[in-house]
């Protein structure tokens, strides 16, 4: 009888411990993720409220009723369609060029044929962005393309090329060499082995490299704020200007901020798993 009782007690205390553990885990998860959730929620909340609610104290958390006026306002009063187009062209072209030159280069480095280049990319990674910007700015002025989308695209290569090379090196290094060697033995030349065998296997890696490079280029503010002209502003520059001109009108600024960052956040969802498996370790942020 007694032993049955103590067995039951042990069972109860075991269950209790398990439940306590679960509650502690739930609490930790909420604690860890709430700062991220709150900032994005607040961004959304500010963008959907009338100005009177945005400057109310204590703050209004849930927009009631929600309004899309702020979004209408930013698209009506400034040329966000043009700035969005600029951003897409610059980041798209810079990513594409980086893939064209970066993927084969990463292959060469991974095959152990260009360690020096790998080192160069490492040093490029730690160099402050302004040390590229000042000379490039002078160069663009000198050849007369300052303020053009072309100049912006060239400057963004500083971000995208190291990113693509970096991600692709680890991808090619992890790849089993047997298939390629078989192709070489069967009489393929190196280019064919790369193009027909390695490239198709590396396609998921190329997608990740492209998305990461595109996001980093899209998010870049420094190069745009210096090089872009009135008509060639990228979105982050346009949003920054919106703040300096509308100091106290929070709704439109929040709406613009959300419009700018939404593409990066959506793209992140696609590469979330790959970022987690460690591909991005050390490669994020130009």
């Amino acid at each position: 009888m007694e032993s049955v009782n103590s067995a039951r007690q042990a069972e109860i205390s075991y269950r209790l411990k398990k439940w306590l553990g679960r509650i502690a885990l739930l609490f930790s998860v909420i604690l860890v993720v709430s700062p991220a959730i709150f900032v994005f929620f607040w961004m959304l909340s500010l963008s959907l409220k009338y100005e009177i609610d945005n400057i109310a104290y204590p703050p209004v958390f849930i927009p009631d009723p929600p309004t899309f006026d702020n979004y209408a306002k930013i698209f009506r009063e400034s040329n966000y369609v043009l700035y969005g187009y600029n951003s897409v062209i610059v980041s798209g072209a810079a990513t594409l060029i980086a893939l064209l030159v970066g993927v084969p280069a990463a292959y060469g480095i991974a095959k152990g044929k260009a360690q020096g280049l790998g080192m160069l990319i490492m040093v490029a990674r730690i160099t402050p962005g302004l040390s590229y910007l000042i000379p490039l700015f002078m160069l663009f002025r000198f050849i007369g393309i300052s303020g053009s989308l072309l100049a912006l695209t060239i400057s963004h290569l500083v971000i995208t090329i190291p990113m693509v090379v970096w991600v692709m090196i680890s991808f090619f290094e992890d790849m089993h060499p047997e298939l390629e060697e078989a192709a070489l033995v069967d009489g393929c030349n190196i280019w064919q082995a790369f193009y027909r065998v390695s490239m198709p296997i590396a396609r998921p890696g190329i997608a990740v490299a492209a998305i990461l490079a595109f996001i980093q280029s899209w998010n870049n503010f420094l190069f745009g704020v210096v090089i872009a002209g009135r008509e060639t502003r990228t979105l982050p520059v346009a949003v920054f200007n919106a703040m300096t001109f509308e100091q106290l009108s929070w709704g439109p600024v929040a709406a613009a901020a959300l419009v700018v960052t939404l593409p990066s956040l959506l793209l992140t969802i696609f590469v979330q798993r790959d970022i987690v498996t460690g591909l991005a370790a050390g490669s994020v942020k130009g």
Partner: protein
Amino acid sequence: MALASHRKKGYSRQNAYLWFIAPAVLAIFAVIVFPWVYTLWMSLHDWQIGGKSEFVGIENFVKLATDARFLSTIPRTLYFTLLSVLLPVVLGVFAAEVFHQKFPLRGLVRGIYIAPMMATPVAIALVFTMMFHPQLGVLNYFLTLVGIPKSLWVYSADTVIPTLALVEVWQWTPLVMLIVLGALASLPTEPYESALIDGANQWQMFRYITFPLILPFLMIAVIIRTIDALKSFDIIYVISQGGPGTASETINIFLYLQAFSFLRIGHASAVVVVFFVIILALAIILLVARERLRWNR
């Protein structure tokens, strides 16, 4: 004869790889190596945009060594960097331990958790600017809710650096978390099993098994975080522009202002060179520290 043809084949294969890297080498020389060399060249000149340039040797560097405004940016940058490295390391390890457990919707929650580091820094900085508002900001409202006096956040010289570091921590703790999470996934299970049998508690297992094993990975996170925090620009420039006064003027902000507000290109290039040396020195110190740790284990 056979040997010769073999060698020739090996040689042509070597050449073929050169074609793979040639376009990248060209591009990298144009947008990366050329700027480095040109920066060095400009740093030796007295050069104002629109004006003429004059070779002055190391005069720009000599001036920097006695420029009180520049010198004050160095400890300020290090203070900002220290906060932006230490806090993410502590918080990131905690978050990694949480995400190492299994729970429902883990993938989604993890996706939300890493969103800050992929978000556009300018957009994030603008939202934080509104949250830091001393009268109407939501953060001061939270402080009053829990009975802490309101803060001036970025509007006071005393709190501006920790406040900016807070944004940096918010944005980059996920990167540390990811690196540590990868490390945790690669850990062996045996030491934990024997520790459990020996009656070790959770903290002891973390302190004596997990921590030593993840330390090399943590050092990588520290190195990456240090380099990036030293170079932090967007968040500081958008939120405080180096103000109030020069209270949040880090090396990078000082550099930007010299180059593009005052258009002193030669002077700014000298700052770039010094800045690069500081980053490189810190990176090397940390790398050496990492190697030492490895030997002592």
